[in-house]
């Protein structure tokens, strides 16, 4: 086979693979554009293969390289299922990237942002300078293992700095900033060497210097990384500084070790620069004043965490006046995008967000008036993440302050705070969509609200809660159903619930049958078998808003509500389908009972009892929940298995108490 024949063979393979990728759903909006861009890139190679006669070895090698690049892009199509990364955060990164990196192009303006999940860490992979394509492709790689850790996702602020340095206007500014950063110990190799050899350098530096012998300093790389750190700080504020410390400190070896010779500057330099930049930008001051009590203490704790520098002035590479010049120059990157750059939150807003988190509620900003009309405010992602970090770092004072009035308040884990913030970002997308729709349609969607709701404020009567009592309970925060996105969502004696964004459906190649006896087997299983038995029953789909999901006749789907629900100990909830939907054949398979004290999303068990498929969209009001007084103590020996749910999950059908009624495991007739 000649090299040209082999090249043609490779070309045909990549082209075939590109077509095959359309078997996959890989992001609701980008599939066509990404496919067409890959197709266009292939077209050039195709034309050049045909045109190149006779082919020279150098040309064949260059085309092979290009083909490999396209092949890698094509392969990424199959690695970008929505379910493997948290797409509401992706949407935010995409909106930043599309605006910051828009350049004049001959054929199309906006860069194409493609998202995959990876196991390697946060990365944004840009097209090369010698890009053979019509549109720039930015591949955003999420670390799969950190899917729900939205507080750490602020690290993407740094990663966005790298493509910024390659974009026309931001790139021009980046060069000016990087020139300013040629100062102090990072001015040149001689300055760096003198700095490291300084007898006053900390012991860890001297030790590393002796250990490493002659160290080559990658000062261009170091300055670029510091530029990206500042870029991230501009985008995400103190939340970036917190994520930066959490992510880097654990892998740095500091304070026992320090790396001097890599592409990235030593960790304590980066940490000190973050603290110093926060001070220069005056983002080191709490937004919540001292009257804010525990929330103020929590914010103070977070600021102490990010301002705690490396405890040694030696690591300060720029004096304040140089850093200020760098920051002023860098600000001009965002001159046309003032709404992207971080700005400190309003103290009242931040206090409310932190307080909601401390009580185990997603941090959105919502008020309900006495007539039952809810108002929401847009909360910027930076402020949501800031509140999340405050709630985590300041969890001790927050819990202490809450315990007298909320003795059952849970201790927050980092994962739980992340998931609450993730839920808030999802809910915020719905809120923003509704607010935009109201702006665009000022006359529509207003329900008439009655004064009687405001007038009744006495204790609830025994039985189902009426509208006025529901409103009273929500206003005094003993009952949480949030967000309430329309004035008529609260009915005469119920609240409508909206479909959330995850769907679990039984896999076609899953279990052969449902058998409660499996619960007993699971107790005896271990390792792979146990996990597989827990995970493999359902296929999972994550839907963006305005994306349909077809529920076929006879199919059962588990979907979460968009709303976060928290019931007090004296109320229980009952969930049923809205009659409008029931008439179309959609059934909530069971009337779900929600126990007193439950907190989390509600799982709707949807079944299509009709004869034709039903298209469902996240955000639709499919179900309704009614509330009933519960008399007597509701304390129970253990929490329900679905409490604190953020999404539907497979349950354990049989409990220990039912085992006496099931055949023994060694009876193979029932296997």
């Amino acid at each position: 086979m000649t090299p040209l024949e082999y090249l043609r063979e490779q070309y045909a393979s990549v082209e075939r693979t590109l077509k095959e990728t359309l078997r996959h759903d890989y992001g609701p909006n980008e599939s066509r554009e990404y496919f067409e861009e890959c197709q266009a890139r292939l077209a050039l190679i195709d034309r050049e293969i045909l045109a190149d006669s006779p082919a020279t070895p150098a040309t064949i090698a260059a085309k092979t390289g290009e083909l490999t690049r396209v092949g890698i892009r094509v392969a990424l199509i199959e690695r970008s299922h929505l379910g493997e990364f948290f797409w509401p955060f992706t949407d935010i990164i995409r909106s930043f990237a599309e605006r910051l990196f828009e350049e004049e192009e001959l054929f199309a303006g906006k860069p194409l942002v493609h998202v995959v999940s990876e196991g390697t860490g946060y990365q944004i992979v840009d097209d090369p300078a010698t890009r053979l394509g019509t549109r720039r492709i930015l591949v955003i790689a999420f670390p799969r293992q950190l899917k729900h850790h939205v507080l750490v996702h602020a690290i993407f602020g740094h990663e966005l700095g790298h493509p910024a340095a390659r974009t026309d206007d931001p790139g021009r500014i980046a060069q000016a900033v990087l020139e300013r950063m040629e100062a102090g110990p990072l001015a040149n190799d001689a300055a760096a060497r003198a700095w490291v050899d300084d007898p006053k350098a900390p012991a860890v530096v001297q030790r590393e210097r002796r250990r490493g012998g002659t160290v080559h300093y990658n000062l261009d790389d170091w300055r670029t990384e510091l530029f990206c750190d500042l870029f991230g700080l501009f985008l995400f504020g103190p939340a970036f500084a917190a994520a930066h410390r959490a992510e880097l400190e654990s892998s740095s070896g500091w304070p026992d070790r320090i790396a001097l010779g890599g592409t990235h500057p030593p960790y304590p330099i980066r940490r000190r620069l973050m603290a110093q930049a926060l001070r220069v930008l005056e983002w080191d001051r709490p937004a919540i004043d001292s009257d804010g009590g525990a929330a103020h203490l929590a914010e103070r704790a977070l600021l102490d965490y990010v301002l705690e520098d490396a405890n040694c002035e030696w690591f300060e590479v720029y004096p304040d006046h140089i850093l200020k010049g760098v920051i002023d120059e860098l600000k001009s990157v965002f001159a046309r995008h003032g709404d992207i750059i971080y700005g400190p939150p309003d103290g009242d807003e931040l206090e409310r967000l932190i307080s909601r988190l401390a009580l185990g509620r997603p941090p959105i900003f919502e008020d309900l008036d006495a007539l039952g009309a809810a108002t929401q405010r847009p909360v910027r992602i930076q402020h949501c993440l800031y509140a999340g970090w405050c709630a985590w770092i300041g969890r001790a004072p927050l819990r202490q302050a809450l315990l007298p009035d909320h003795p059952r308040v849970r201790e927050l884990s980092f994962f739980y705070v992340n998931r609450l913030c993730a839920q808030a970002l999802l809910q915020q997308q719905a809120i923003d969509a509704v607010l935009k729709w109201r702006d665009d349609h000022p006359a529509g969607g207003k329900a008439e609200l009655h004064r009687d709701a405001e007038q009744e404020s006495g204790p609830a009567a025994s039985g189902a809660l009426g509208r006025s009592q529901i409103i009273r309970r929500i206003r005094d925060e003993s009952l949480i159903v949030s967000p309430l996105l329309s004035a008529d969502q609260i009915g005469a004696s119920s609240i409508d619930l909206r479909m959330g964004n995850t769907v679990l459906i039984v896999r076609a190649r899953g279990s052969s049958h449902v058998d409660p006896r499996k619960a007993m087997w699971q107790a005896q299983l271990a390792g792979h078998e146990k996990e597989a038995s827990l995970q493999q029953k359902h296929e999972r789909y994550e839907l963006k808003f305005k994306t349909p999901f077809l529920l076929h006749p006879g199919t059962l789907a588990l979907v979460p509500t968009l709303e976060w629900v928290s019931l007090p100990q004296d109320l229980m909830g009952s969930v049923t389908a809205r009659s409008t939907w029931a008439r179309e054949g959609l059934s909530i398979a069971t009337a779900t009972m929600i126990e007193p004290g439950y907190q989390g999303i509600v799982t709707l068990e949807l079944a299509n009892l009709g004869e034709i498929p039903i298209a469902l969209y996240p955000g639709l009001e499919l179900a309704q929940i009614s509330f009933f007084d519960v008399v007597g103590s509701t304390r129970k020996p253990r929490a329900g298995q679905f409490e604190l749910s953020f999404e539907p999950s497979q349950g354990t059908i049989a409990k220990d108490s039912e085992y006496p009624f099931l055949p023994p495991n060694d009876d193979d007739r029932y296997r």
Partner: protein
Amino acid sequence: MSIMAAQDLNDARGAARLMAMAARRSIEEQGASTAASRVALGGLFRLLRAYRAHRLAGFAYQPHREGSQEGMAIVAPGESHITAVRDALQRALAEVYENDEEIGLESVEAVLRAVASENRLEPNDVRRTSCFLESLVEKLEAAA
């Protein structure tokens, strides 16, 4: 080490040469109707814009080049020899546009815009841009 690691699959000189050759053909044929033409013209346009804005400096930095073999799974190894492309551009512009780089860049960009929007081109502009691309290809070949 991967069997392919010995090859320089992401040699910016080779890709730039392909792009310049294809763009030259499209300019001489004065057509941007095919996907292949658009790819070549669009790619060359962006390369020139990046050269003008920051001399390709942003592309010279490869943050994941060390100790991150696993990280390269999602993309080909970093672009190499980008400075050779920068030098070739600089010399080809100086040669054809008599050391007035700014005028040269504007002239080539104007031709690319005209081809993209299928406007009529002055024969002299076509000839000069073609000379520039020919010179660029030669310099990239010499640098390889």
